[in-house]
């Protein structure tokens, strides 16, 4: 698998966020996987940037991403116009494990910020497979809620919390998560800011399996540079594992937060 050429089909911007749809030869992917993406902008920046898959239609040859501008690379992706070319290496990484949870109880999906897109893709798969789940989304303000339309199309009504109370429940996503867990969730799937992931891991620990999608700065995205590691506990030993290869989804019990 080399980098694939894609063409920008559309790039819909809303504030600092955009939804980028690419057309090309799309290999089938699983929720939680990601691509390393880069436009034809010369060497500034040089490295591609990892983005989770928001959704794909392999038969139509389209794939979607949602990103937030935080620096040079995301800025460049944000500025892409329809018709421009993008190269992508992917799908990469291990997806959210979906076979693992007891189907008699609903799973809980917990997304924050740009951690929401992979969970939307996951929700789509769970729907298709007939697995029950609750979707929780935490954001700073109503403006920062993501993918609400996509979720609507899937028939998913997320439980929303905002820090300023401008939409849904005021506060953090941990409150509804607490309720879900106490009702007996089968598994938690989470992606978002580190603080949120830590809380999910802690709350699930010993009770419910948690599958957390981590972020890390990436060089290659396919396992050769060792730039993206996270410390984990494997059989009692503290080792560094690659977010791009052993992850990005890790069992919440093994991650050593430092």
């Amino acid at each position, binding site marked *: 698998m080399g*980098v694939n050429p894609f063409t920008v089909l559309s790039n819909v911007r809303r504030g600092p966020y955009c939804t980028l749809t690419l057309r090309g030869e799309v290999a089938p992917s699983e929720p939680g996987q990601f691509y390393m993406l880069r436009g034809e902008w010369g*060497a500034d920046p*040089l490295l591609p940037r990892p983005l989770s898959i928001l959704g794909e239609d392999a038969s139509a040859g389209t794939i979607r991403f949602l990103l937030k501008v935080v620096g040079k690379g995301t800025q460049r992706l944000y500025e892409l116009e329809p018709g421009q070319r993008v190269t992508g290496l992917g799908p990469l990484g291990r997806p959210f494990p979906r076979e693992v949870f007891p189907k008699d109880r609903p799973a809980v999906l917990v997304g924050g910020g740009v951690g929401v897109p992979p969970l939307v893709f996951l929700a789509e798969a769970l729907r298709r497979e007939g697995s029950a789940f609750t979707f929780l989304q935490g954001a700073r303000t109503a403006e920062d809620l993501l993918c609400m339309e996509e979720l609507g199309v899937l028939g998913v009504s997320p439980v929303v919390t905002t820090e300023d109370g401008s939409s849904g429940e005021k506060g953090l996503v941990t409150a509804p998560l607490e309720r879900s867990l106490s009702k007996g969730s089968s598994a938690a799937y989470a992606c978002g800011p580190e603080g949120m992931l830590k809380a999910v891991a802690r709350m699930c620990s010993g009770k419910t399996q948690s599958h957390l999608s981590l972020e890390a700065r990436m060089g290659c995205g396919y396992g050769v540079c060792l730039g993206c590691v996270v410390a984990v506990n494997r059989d009692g030993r503290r080792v560094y594992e690659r977010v791009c290869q052993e992850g990005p989804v890790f069992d919440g019990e093994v991650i050593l937060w430092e």
Partner: protein
Amino acid sequence: MGVDLAISIGSVRLKNPVTLASGCCGYGLDMEPHLDLNRLGGVFLKGLSMAGSEGNRPPRIWETGGGMINAIGLQNVGVAPFLREKAPKLRGYDTAFVANFYGHTVDQYVEAARALGEEPCLAALEMNISCPNIQEGGIQFGTDPASVYKVTKACRDATSKPLWVKLSPNAADVTATAKAAEDAGADALTCINTMPAMAIDVEKREFRISNKIGGLSGPALKPIAVRIVYQVSKVVSIPVVGIGGICTAADALEFVLAGARAVQVGTALFVDPQCPYAILAGMEDYCLRHGFPSVESLVGQMRDGAPMPKCHE
């Protein structure tokens, strides 16, 4: 009539001059889904040490203008686990695997050279001498000609495998460290390793990488590397392998014209794991267009062979 791409680095024959750089292709195997190793001249494996290393705390990398800084901390499984678990999987490939190794004392280098020297699937050993010498106050081996001589000689005596020394650009006079390596019996020289570098997140007032200092690689480094290849290949008679910021065939050709017999591709693999194909194809095309029958015939062939320059700015 095709172009003869094969090139010898001392007794090692590479089927073509394009190879993968150490630390940028893991133990070769991780490249497999993305690149056919059999199409490459060689593969330089991730740096190995006797004890192995868990590596540095993240964050380990940061992108800078035209390049990147890494401080992986030479994370590696260690020589013995490598020989036991990885090496067997490398047999049967039709490319030259070279083990890159390092130590923090001369003895550690020697042990690694001796152990790796026994492995049949390795075509050569590449010594990374850009490591702090903990017996000499932590100064890099590679910055001091006397240390370079000492550690190279010790390894030379420990193995009969071809021994290639990877020079540090961080020497006052890299021709002196190059000659020291040659005098000590190195079979070839790799130019160059990364330059020590730093980046700061000013909003957080934190270092971008946890180790503070890392190695600068990528296009930013290329003009420094080409200069060193040129200077070194003028003063030694052993083969030089060029590396630093190579992304395209034109980049690779700069190194070959400056005097390198083969090239290594590092950081560019992160941009496109298949770029070695395009580099090789472009080199072949260049030979055809310019009437060179082989890559060999191109090495060091600048039009102007005039003496070394003096002053600048």
